[in-house]
């Protein structure tokens, strides 16, 4: 009798233990992910805005980012650029730009214009120390041409730096290249 009691207790405890370990794990809430970078470029003095976007909903999964360019730039026009970063794995999407701007002294955007593209960029916003941040900038389209523009966001970098990625160092949060045309 006692043996049976003991065994059933044993079996019961086994059941309890097993059911504990069978609890499904929680999915990880990825907090620092940037899935989407949207760059809105509005021509000063009016005209058609241009939107550049890179969207990678599976993060470091196998799918490459989807790159879209809404249209071409107009020649000899200055555009006001504004960069918006989103984490779309969360609902509603989290605006990461806010975080970047809060920690402006640890972040900086870099704009790399391909050799064939006739354009220039200039920083429009700075961090608390007066060093460039670059979530806002101006894009001056020159003569008709085609080429690439690369946007790189770094954190934990050297500030101030000489404006090159090599000098700045740090960690890359974003590095995306867009094929654009000026007409």
């Amino acid at each position: 009798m006692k043996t049976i009691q003991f065994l059933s207790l044993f079996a019961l405890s086994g059941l309890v233990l097993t059911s504990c370990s069978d609890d499904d794990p929680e999915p990880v809430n990825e907090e620092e992910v940037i899935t989407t970078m949207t760059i809105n470029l509005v021509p000063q003095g009016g005209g058609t805005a241009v939107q550049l976007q890179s969207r990678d909903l599976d993060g470091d999964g196998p799918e490459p980012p989807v790159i879209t360019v809404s249209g071409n730039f107009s020649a000899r026009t200055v555009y006001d650029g504004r960069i918006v970063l989103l984490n779309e794995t969360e609902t509603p999407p989290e605006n990461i730009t806010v975080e970047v701007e809060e920690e402006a002294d640890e972040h900086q955007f870099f704009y790399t214009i391909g050799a064939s593209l006739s354009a220039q960029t200039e920083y429009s916003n700075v961090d608390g120390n007066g060093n460039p941040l670059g979530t806002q900038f101006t894009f001056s389209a020159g003569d008709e041409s085609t080429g690439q523009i690369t946007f790189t966001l770094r954190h934990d970098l050297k500030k101030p730096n000489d404006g090159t990625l090599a000098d700045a160092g740090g960690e890359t949060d974003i590095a995306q290249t867009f094929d654009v045309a000026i007409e």
Partner: protein
Amino acid sequence: MRTLLAIVLSLFVYHVSNGQQCQEALYGQVLDFHDQTPLVGATVHILELDKAVLTDFEGRFRIEDICHGTYEVEVSHRLCRTLIFEVEILGNTQRDFQMEHHLEELEEVQVVGDLLPDVSNTAQEQRLSTQTLENYSSGTLGDALREISGVSTLKTGSNIVKPAINGLTGSRVLILNDGVRMQDMEWGDEHAPNLDINAADQVSVIKGPAALKYAGDAIGGLVVIERERVAIADSLFGKTLMTLMSNGWGGNVSTEITRTFESGWYLNGQASFKRLGDREAPDYVLSNTGMQDLGLSFHAGKRLINQGWDFDYSYYQADIAILRASHIGNVDDLIESINSGTPSVIEPFTYELGVPRQEVAHHLGKFNYYLRIKGVGKWTAQYDFQNNRRFEYDVRVGADRDKPAIDLELTTHTVMTDFTWDASSNLEVQAGVLGRYQNNFANPDTGVRRLIPDYDKYDFGAFLIGEYRLKENWLFEAGIRYDYNRIDALKFYRTSRWEERGYDEDFPEFVVEDLGTQLLTNPVFEFHNFSASTGMRVILDADSEIRANYALGQRPPNPSELFSDGLHHSAARIELGDLRIDTETSHRISVAYNRSGERWGITLEPYLNYIRDFILLEPTGAEFTIRGAFPVWSYRQTDARLAGVDLSGYYQWSPQWQSRHHFSLTKGNDLDQDEPLINIPAPITRNSVAFQKAEWHQFEVSLEGTYVFRQNEAPPNIFVFSPSQQELVELDINTPPPAYFLMALRAGMAFSLSETLVLNTGIAVENLANTNYREYLNRNRYFADDMGRNIILQLKLYY
């Protein structure tokens, strides 16, 4: 019987007559029978004359003013059985005595299977003495093991060092810590063994999977860490070691004390602490390469002739900073790092441990019981518990700055029991079973997707081994082992990854829940593995023997090989496991010829290891994310062949001068792809010359040169698309670095402070010429040079 025979055979007597009566001397050395380390503080007593002396630091003794004649000499040491030898004194007589240093609980019956040399009698086996381990007191187990020919290391910087045996590492090298198989997440390349080298008294390496008593899956081999056996005697002794080093401006302190009692009880406690700041290459500080670790252990037990028990607990904790420059953002950063030749971050020296950084803690508890049944054999039962916690901190920003990116907890319970029939003098049979339960918990609070999932693992193993002694000098050994493993995991896969890998077609039954962009899956795998070993050992003469062994080993895939999936932030690479990976099977044939004579010795160990379905991780391409492109490292299986030879030897040029020589060669080939395997150690040769003079306070100095050849056989590089260069570029990820030559100088002296207090001092200079070099098997070789000159001071106090 065998022990006695070997002792008798290994005695050498030199007769030097000087013709004068009663002015002769008896001198020589008292050595450990197993590894020839000198025994300090042994008493050599000529019974008829009642003359006695203690051996010094080299185990040497000298008794003067003896007359011609034959005497009984009693040799005793607190950890050994006292032996009596008959010695004929004919002129100044040199005689070395060898003692059985490890006392078995039962002195009358010779027990095989418990002492280190018997882990396998026919496989290739080499060992490190306590003295060698003490030299590496401030280093790692892996560093010390490199002293053994054929052992190399896979490193991440200077502080994370994994031993590799004949080119194989990770889950293929089993670390047996005082009878317990370490369960410390050995699957990761940057996961070093979680143990304190200062807690080990002896370490031996068995090459290949021949030690079936412990495992059948140790395809690379077995590292056996043992503590000194205690004597059944009333005694209190201890030692304290202090090491200071210039490279890292730190050092360590280690202390140990042992109390033994006539009644068989014993107590032992040990503690060590190490602290190092940033290490330095010849030209720059290796920023963020400091470390700190703490080891504590406590042992108690009672050992009697017919039964006994031990309780052991040890704790190891390490905080290890990882080279800041090795943390890279994407493939362009990697290309930049490889091409630039200097680390991207160089800051002034600091003791601070920044990010990336690992924090690991390992608890090990063990209870062991043995019972000897007269005329039958010995029964042993053991339970052990291990808890391994690993945090990896990454370069993160914002609120997550101080949050670990990896947080894993691995808990293991093991019970095992075995029985040894040793009543017959020429046949011994041992059989045993093992059961193990393991749970891994990956904490989701990291905010980073889990690389290794939650899982439960169940193991069952059974073995039968036998050895037969044909005559006194022929020994045969054979064994079989069966292992069952079941792994039951719960893992989230991104739907895109699940489909890209084709799992949706092969494993649809694993899907538990669809959460939209990701799937919760429940992969369950079972493995049945068989291993076997057979071999022979022939003692040719007093100095030499030949061993030959064939071992069949089977290893199931580890969690990393099965489940890895995603960006490994600290390595900046995407690692992809494969659920289809199955057991790998090794066939290893080895021969060992060993001669260890008075003047010279040689060990020659050729081997061939054919591995079917060898699991390897190598760079295969790149994947694009919003952060840029990352190199992808994938696991795959292939048939592989590893072949090589390890050679070592010594020559005693004069009583003062000795030279030692090592050479090791490993060749690894991927037979399916017909190309070299990745991460095979380059050929290496190490030669040293030593001068010693006992009269000058045991003065000893040695100069060692290590030449590491360039590894000319590596898989080809891969081509990846570089977003910044907008073209396909060669990623120079497999190109081995050039050959290098390093010199090391070591010197030591010993002082007797009192009758029971001995101080040993040592100085060593590693990388004497401050040479710039990079090592193929250091994962930081893409980012920075290896360590520069290091001056090490060591004080050892024995009491």
